[in-house]
């Protein structure tokens, strides 16, 4: 006798079984380029990656301040965790910058997740999950740094190098473009930047011998508008800094894996570029290797390079210059401040790239030195096959990708610093597409390391230092409340006095910090929100914490409801 099958129906979205789903109010509908230009006039919101185009990571909110910060506590916690098998399962980390628009938070996670949350309660409104192949090349970790919002859409990149536009109300996909080749080792981790009617994104994959690029897409249609390669082809400007023979340029790196800043007056995007490839074997790529390890000014409309400043010519230490380019004014000059992985703080004129000053910002630098006028002299580097060479800072840099902040009120830069070294032993290898292309064995120190948050003025003078026993590996946030928020690898979230560096408040979040906190307000109540979830390239920036537990919590802090603000 034949028994009929039970009809199990059709598979449904897993999110429908989360108990939390719905539509978000249309708060992003009217987020325009003009509003983002003037983002800091809306202190209740965090409209773009750095809070504003200038990259300062400064909020005018002051309800939480030096007097009352000791009274803040968790207002809500959002957790996702992981289920099933994911790419780089041991490397996922929560590295995003939460975006907030009129009470709704948009934030990305690892492995293709994007969420919309109620910023007042932390309740999930919708989720989007991009299916991520298990076998994509990820250096370094299954991570994503955040989303952008404009004109009713939420923009994100995916680990397999797509840029997607989601409906900000429903979380449903509107358009989807592939802008990288996973078979070549490319991936994507960057938070998109909205400029005019464009979505600007860069590529990841600098450890796989790719050719880094920056791309622009029309935010309405997804049409590809321009691509700017950061390694020139033979005959193009800068190609003379690569070997004339062979294909070193084609594998040269210079990925734009971190969000740039933008000045509407110069119409320039300020982009930091990544390391050359292979990272540690310079002999196969003689020359300065432009535009690797550089601050590159790109015309926003044409995608053409207007000027560059190279922080580490012919890098053999993995000193990406991807760190943020903070725009500020001093004595009537339009300047740009950049804390590089190589341990030096660069200030350049952002209209033309002319050097203004260079100062070391970490105690131990012995890879070489850079004089005040910009002359670079290497001292210790892996140049003989099989010969171990120890150098400071290690390949994660004196400051990793995580961001500094600048307060226009104190006129100080606040910098998370890693003082840790590494040993690299050159091991030449043949290039093969999608295979790691480092040219060395590398071991980062697990002892004799330290960290601090330092405050520098624009002349490079250190004004104060808050010391930590571990390197500081998370972005800092400055507020008009006179505070600097900084998370530690061991889980503490700290509030420091922006004028003195005094520790005013601390909360143990249960997992290490490797993300970018932001602040916003809803119904007059200020929140400070921080993604917490240790992981990523821990073997590169802090192998002594490789055994620490992962986390995946988003924690919002606030004063008790009804508490006086001062």
């Amino acid at each position, binding site marked *: 006798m034949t028994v009929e099958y039970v009809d199990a129906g059709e598979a*449904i*979205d897993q999110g429908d079984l989360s108990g939390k789903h719905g539509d978000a109010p249309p708060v992003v509908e009217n987020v325009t380029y003009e509003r983002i230009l003037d983002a800091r006039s809306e202190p209740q919101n965090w409209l773009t990656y750095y809070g504003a185009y200038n990259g300062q990571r400064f909020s005018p909110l002051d309800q939480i301040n030096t007097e009352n910060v000791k009274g803040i506590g968790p207002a809500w916690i959002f957790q996702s965790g992981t289920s*099933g098998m994911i790419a780089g399962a041991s490397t996922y980390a929560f590295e995003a910058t939460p975006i907030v628009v009129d009470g709704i938070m948009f934030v990305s996670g690892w492995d293709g997740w994007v969420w919309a949350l109620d910023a007042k309660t932390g309740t999930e409104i919708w989720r989007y999950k991009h299916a991520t192949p298990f076998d994509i090349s990820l250096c370094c970790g299954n991570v994503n740094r955040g989303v952008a919002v404009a004109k009713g859409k939420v923009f994100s990149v995916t680990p397999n190098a797509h840029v997607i536009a989601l409906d900000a109300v429903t979380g449903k*996909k509107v358009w989807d473009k592939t802008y990288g080749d996973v078979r070549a080792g490319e991936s994507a981790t960057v938070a998109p930047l909205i400029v005019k009617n464009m979505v600007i994104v860069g590529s990841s994959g600098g450890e796989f011998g790719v050719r880094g690029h920056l791309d622009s897409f029309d935010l309405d249609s997804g049409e590809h508008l321009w691509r700017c390669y950061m390694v020139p082809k033979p005959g193009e400007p800068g190609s003379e800094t690569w070997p004339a023979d062979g294909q070193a340029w084609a594998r040269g790196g210079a990925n734009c894996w971190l969000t740039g800043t933008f000045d509407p007056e110069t119409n320039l995007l300020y982009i930091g570029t990544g390391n050359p490839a292979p990272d540690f074997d310079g002999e196969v790529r003689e020359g300065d290797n432009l535009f690797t390890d550089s601050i590159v000014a790109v015309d926003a409309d044409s995608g053409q390079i207007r000027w560059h400043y190279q922080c580490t010519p012919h890098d053999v230490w993995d000193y990406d210059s991807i760190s943020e380019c903070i725009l500020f004014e001093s004595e009537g000059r339009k300047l740009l401040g950049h804390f590089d992985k190589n341990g030096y703080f660069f200030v350049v004129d952002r209209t033309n790239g002319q050097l203004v000053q260079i100062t070391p910002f970490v105690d131990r630098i012995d890879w070489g030195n850079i004089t005040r006028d910009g002359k670079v002299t290497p001292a210790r580097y892996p140049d003989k096959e099989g010969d171990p060479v120890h150098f400071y800072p290690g390949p994660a840099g004196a400051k990793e990708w995580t961001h500094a902040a600048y307060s226009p009120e104190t006129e100080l830069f606040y910098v998370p610093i890693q003082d840790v070294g590494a040993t690299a032993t050159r091991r030449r290898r043949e290039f093969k597409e999608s295979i790691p292309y480092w040219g060395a064995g590398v071991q980062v120190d697990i002892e004799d390391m330290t960290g601090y948050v330092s405050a520098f003025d624009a002349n490079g003078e250190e004004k104060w230092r808050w010391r930590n026993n571990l390197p500081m590996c998370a972005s800092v946030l400055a507020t008009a409340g006179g505070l600097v928020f900084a998370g530690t690898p061991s889980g503490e979230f700290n509030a420091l006095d922006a004028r003195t560096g005094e520790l005013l408040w601390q909360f143990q979040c249960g997992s290490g910090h490797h993300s970018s906190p932001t602040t916003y307000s809803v119904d007059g109540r200020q929140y400070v929100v921080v993604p917490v979830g240790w992981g990523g390239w821990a073997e590169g920036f802090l192998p002594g914490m490789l055994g620490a537990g992962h986390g995946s919590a988003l924690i919002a802090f606030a004063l008790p409801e009804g508490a006086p603000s001062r």
Partner: protein
Amino acid sequence: MTTSSAQDRADLLHKLGLDQQNKGPIGRVITTGNVEQAKEREDGTMHIRLRINPDEIAWDPAVIVMPHGGDLEIEIFNDDLNTHCALFPSNGDRKFIWLVNHSRGRAKLNLDGPGYYWFSSPTGNDEGRGLTGAIVVLGDVPPEARLDRPEQPRP
């Protein structure tokens, strides 16, 4: 002991009890089952049948191969005498279906690839016992997404 051919591999898996329940390890080592390519319709969508056979606690096929990225329709049969479920990767959200004993259901997935993805039965320890499979997407990224450089050597 190493293997030198596909038949050697199958024989050794069986001899060591890696492709059965409670022989070598406790469960069946994942993706030791069959491999099958999805069939493509004229409109470019792909389809395949997927089964859970009695007491195998494994997917059949254990490896589904899509010739390219796109939409895949799966017809699922739970022929086992126990209840399982399925969680599939798909762009937008993962797809879930509950599969009581002797049931039949459907799933529609969108995967862009190239690369491979896991699917499983996320209940109890079905995943560890062997109900974990792979969906492989063949092909390349679109030409406009490829790097402007000469063809490079691959492994």
